[in-house]
């Protein structure tokens, strides 16, 4: 619990420092004009006011809904695709050998530059953002599942075969659970990247979503709204990450944790 207090204290200190340094009433020591700090870095009270306005006025809900939906769709579709492809290639060495250079090339490509193409293909609506998010999520999950399938302990595999497992039972009872621990390791990264796909897509061209709001505010130099949007996205990324962590702790009870025994 002491850690929690320290964390809250740190947050408070950061906000206080930010507030003091950007307050126009405090004399500027770097900028020639006391208003400039607020112009560039925003003011925490105004940012909070903006957030409150959004939620009280209800203006934010449709935008937030769009961004979250894009993120979730990209996350789920990318994960499912990554797991399916990872299992397949992990179990089919010939196909994996043939596809290897193509997969490497696709993974090495900076996929954000696909965003303009997706907009041409799928329009300015949600589909293009989801497509971008999927390309980001898919490869992370895919590589982890692929690795997980190939690193199944040979002894566990041979043992399951000796116990009479059929090919399907091996997939269900050995490969899948073994790959699952790798999947969860990758999901924490993928949640963040699904958000990146949605927001970058919105930022580049759209008519709704939090990325769109940020883009609009930036156009009129409303730095407080930009920061409010960033904070909002961060908050929801944390919530999604927490949800993944919660599911992980439910499904992965069998995994040893470093903290299983604590010294008293």
């Amino acid at each position, binding site marked *: 619990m002491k850690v929690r207090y320290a964390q809250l204290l740190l947050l408070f200190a950061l906000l206080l420092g930010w507030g003091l340094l950007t307050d126009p009433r405090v004399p500027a020591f770097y900028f020639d004009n006391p208003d400039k700090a607020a112009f560039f870095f925003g003011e925490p009270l105004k940012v909070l006011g903006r957030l409150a306005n959004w939620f009280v006025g209800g203006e934010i809900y449709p935008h937030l809904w769009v961004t979250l939906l894009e993120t979730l769709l990209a996350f789920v579709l990318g994960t499912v695709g990554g797991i399916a492809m990872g299992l397949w290639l992990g179990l089919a060495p010939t196909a994996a050998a043939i596809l290897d250079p193509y997969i490497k090339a696709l993974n090495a490509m900076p996929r954000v530059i696909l965003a303009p193409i997706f907009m041409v293909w799928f329009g300015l609506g949600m589909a293009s953002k989801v497509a971008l998010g999927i390309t980001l999520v898919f490869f992370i999950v895919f590589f982890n599942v692929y690795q997980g399938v190939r690193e199944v302990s040979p002894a566990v595999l041979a043992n399951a075969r000796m116990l*009479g497992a059929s090919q399907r039972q091996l997939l269900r009872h050995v490969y899948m*659970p073994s790959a699952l621990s790798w999947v969860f390791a990758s999901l924490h990264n993928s949640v963040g990247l699904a958000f990146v796909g949605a927001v970058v897509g919105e930022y580049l061209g759209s008519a709704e979503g939090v990325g769109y709001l940020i883009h609009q505010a930036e156009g009129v130099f409303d730095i407080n709204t930009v920061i409010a949007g960033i904070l909002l996205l961060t908050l929801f990324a944390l919530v999604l990450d927490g949800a993944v962590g919660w599911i992980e702790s439910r499904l992965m009870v*069998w995994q040893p944790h470093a903290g299983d025994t604590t010294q008293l």
Partner: protein
Amino acid sequence: MVDGHYSLELERITCRFASRDDPGMPYVAVAEASLAVRAGEFVAVVGPTGCGKSTLLNVAAGLLAPSSGAVRVHGEPLVGINRKAGYMFQADALMPWRSALANVTAGLEFRGIEAGEARAQGQAWLQRVGLGGFGARYPHQLSGGMRKRVALAQMLALDPEILLMDEPFSALDVQTRQLMENELLALWSANRKSVIFITHDLEEAISLSDRVIVLSAGPGTHPIGEFVIDLPRPRDVAEIRLTPRFVALHTRIWHAMKDEVMKAYAAQYAPLPEGA
């Protein structure tokens, strides 16, 4: 070997592997090895480290197809996995994502036995290996000895006629190991299966088995000697080691083994300097 009552026969088994250093020159792990186990007989196979003991056992299990030679189970040629055999591995082979009980019932489940029935049988087996209260634990929450007990229960739950054991207790400390050996003997005496027990420990081999087969050093491993162990049963593995008959057998078999152990040692390490 014309008895005809063998539950498992390996006849002139040869296993060649492509060598990593020189693909043109295959590595012959096992050459022309024959051995047979009678129904209800406990056979221990000893050999120096790295001599291909596990290879031979994998052939018997059907996990590895030999390059040449025949495997027969009750006189029938073996095709695919040996369904009559249970295998206990040297390494930890429990599924870490299954609880101890779920590990024991895994084989029953694979065979389509109804879940409630499988659980009851699994629980009974856990009780028999002294882990009745540990069914809900996951493998990482169990000690090394307990994991071996779960593996033993997992193998025996399917009631296999042939037990293949690959240095199953070699990772355990001496006390735990002797406890496990005694329990294995007790379980085996209650329901006699054919056993091939691989080990590099001659004392373990003699104290457990009816017959000890000594393998040559690799490459090209094959049996070079066979010794009938006429020690009375039931045995206590710790006490029997002190009897004169045990010591006499040990001396005789060790004499036969010594050259092979030295050969294996020489192949693995640079020779010691003169006078060292």
